[in-house]
């Protein structure tokens, strides 16, 4: 059972991350934060590290705009025994880090059996009008790379706990935060609106309708978990359809299938914010279909298009609440 710390109960996602980083810096002198504009007074593009450079002088390393270079820098620091936590300002800029992550970090970790505690944090996702190169869910580039671990927290558990977990893995971790989550209050109790139960016994979180035995499963991760939970609630209130929601935090490698008992489900829907074709959902649904034959599955995600800036068009391309709700209803009919 994962322990829920009480003082996080009234906490926002960004505060939980900041508090955790603070306690990590206090507890472990080998941890360094590396990234662009992360020191005070600016404190990071999304302010996750605000205030920390003043408390821990020298522990936050401001970098030039050299994402390839400072990702490599951090890998070198990890080889030499430090624990760097890198911030890539927007997940879109992960494209610049691919060579260092794929051809260096993961190869040293897996081929050279090199312990390599390096966590690369980055804010992902859209719905904020930032346009085509500041709104993407770039983690999809990295699914399936051996030697890499990908974690995406959500607001239904403490993202700080996930960050600690990530550092303890002693291996390269891509840590996908979500821009729309930073200002959200964390939901850390055992129920939502007294009729949805939350179970956090594993590295994934199960939201289920109390006293209902559902044969429909909705799997999701990261920022869009909020929409998954909203849809679960509304499907039950409006249509009397009970859906189980599983929010996965270890996106890759994914042990959900080893642990999860899917026998009871007849319908499985995946929901991701990234492009749905050949995306996370396509991969995980294929694995599910390989193991459980009598299932109907559907992947929902962004349309195959760049992410436009105007609000209505952005919500047309990305899987917003209304579209997802309708697509799921149609699928179940």
């Amino acid at each position, binding site marked *: 059972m994962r322990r829920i710390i009480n003082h996080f109960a009234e906490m926002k996602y960004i505060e939980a991350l900041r508090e955790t980083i603070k306690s990590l810096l206090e507890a472990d002198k080998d941890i360094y934060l590396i990234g662009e504009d992360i020191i005070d007074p600016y404190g990071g593009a999304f302010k996750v590290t605000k205030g920390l450079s003043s408390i821990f002088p020298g522990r936050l390393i401001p*970098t030039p705009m*050299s994402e390839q*270079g400072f990702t490599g820098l*951090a890998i070198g620091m990890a080889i*030499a025994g*430090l624990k760097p936590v890198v911030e890539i300002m927007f997940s879109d800029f992960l494209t610049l880090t691919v060579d*260092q992550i794929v051809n260096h970090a993961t190869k040293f970790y*897996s081929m050279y059996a090199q312990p390599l505690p390096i966590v690369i944090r980055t804010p992902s996702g859209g719905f904020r009008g930032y346009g085509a190169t500041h709104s993407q869910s770039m983690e999809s580039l990295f699914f399936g790379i051996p030697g890499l671990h990908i974690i995406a927290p959500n607001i239904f558990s403490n993202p700080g706990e996930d960050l600690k977990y990530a550092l303890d893995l002693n291996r390269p971790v891509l840590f996908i935060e979500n821009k729309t989550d930073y200002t959200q209050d964390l939901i850390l109790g055992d129920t939502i609106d007294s009729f949805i139960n939350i179970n956090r016994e594993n590295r994934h979180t199960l939201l289920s309708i109390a006293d209902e035995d559902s044969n429909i499963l909705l799997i999701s991760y990261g920022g869009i978990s909020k929409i998954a939970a909203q849809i679960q609630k509304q499907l039950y209130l409006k249509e009397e359809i009970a859906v189980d929601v599983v929010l996965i935090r270890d996106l890759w490698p994914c042990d959900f299938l080893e642990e999860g008992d899917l026998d009871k489900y007849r319908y499985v829907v995946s929901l991701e914010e990234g492009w749905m074709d050949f995306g996370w959902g396509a991969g995980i649904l294929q694995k599910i279909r390989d193991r459980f034959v009598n299932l109907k599955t559907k992947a929902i995600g962004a349309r195959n298009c760049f992410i436009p800036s105007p609000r209505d068009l952005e919500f047309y391309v990305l899987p917003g609440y209304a579209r997802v709700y309708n697509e799921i209803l149609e699928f179940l009919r």
Partner: protein
Amino acid sequence: MIEKAIEIYKKMFLIRQFEMILEDYFTKGLLRGTTHSCIGQEAVAVSILDYIDIERDFVTSTHRGHGHFLAITGDVFALASEVMGKRTGVVSGLGGSQHLQHKNFYTNGITGGMIPIGVGIAFAKKLKGEEGIVISFLGDGAMNEGYVMEALNMAKVYDVPIIFVLENNCYAMSSITRNLSGGEFGDRVRSFGLRYVYEEAIDVLNLWQKFGEIYREVLINRSPVFIECRTYRFCGHSKSDKREYVLEEEEDFWREHDPLLLLREKILRNIELDELERQERYVKQGIVDAFKNAEQEEELGVEEFSSKYISA
């Protein structure tokens, strides 16, 4: 001095013989994969690496890393095993020619990729207050990779104890590097505010002395230095390269200034030819035996491999 000269010569001879025997194995179709030999470039490896302590210092190398590995370890059997994919190899035979890791020595197959990593290791040494420095090798082709420039900038900004050793062998694979490079490398390096040193890898003993001075300087001053070393490879970029692109005058110059032969001539002023040849035969026989012994070894089995290396 003559003892040191002989010691350095024997290391160079070992590297060259190893590479020649290796190329011979490839030509005969006895090996899979590819290899990048350093025939002609041995002088750089043996002179700088003579000073390092691989338990304390770190060395990052390149796809052309056999010479560096042998200059540090002299372990021809482990390297021969590695290129043959045998379990007795440097990384259990799994990496092959380009992917070596031994103690604080790391190579990888991506041009220039180890340079930011070398800076990171040196930065960690600085932050932890640890002794020792980093030697990071790169080729002239890598000077046109973006993250190498990023790394040079960071080396200056964070002021870390690293020596960059640019082995400029005139060719980036088949391309004449100066035709594809704007300006001079020295100007690029100096523009970051880095200390830049230029050497020609011809007179090995002179090179060895200069490297010694710079090594001791960085060990004490803890600030980065960039050395460009003009050198030359007498072999192809990789095993399949027929060297159709080489410039005749360049080739002639280096044939006349082969640092290995020049050092040999120097040594022969002090010891008898018979004695030197006897020592050469001994070194060569050691390599031949190492290759034969490596051939007898086995590859890592699927069962052991999958239990140790395949997780997800």
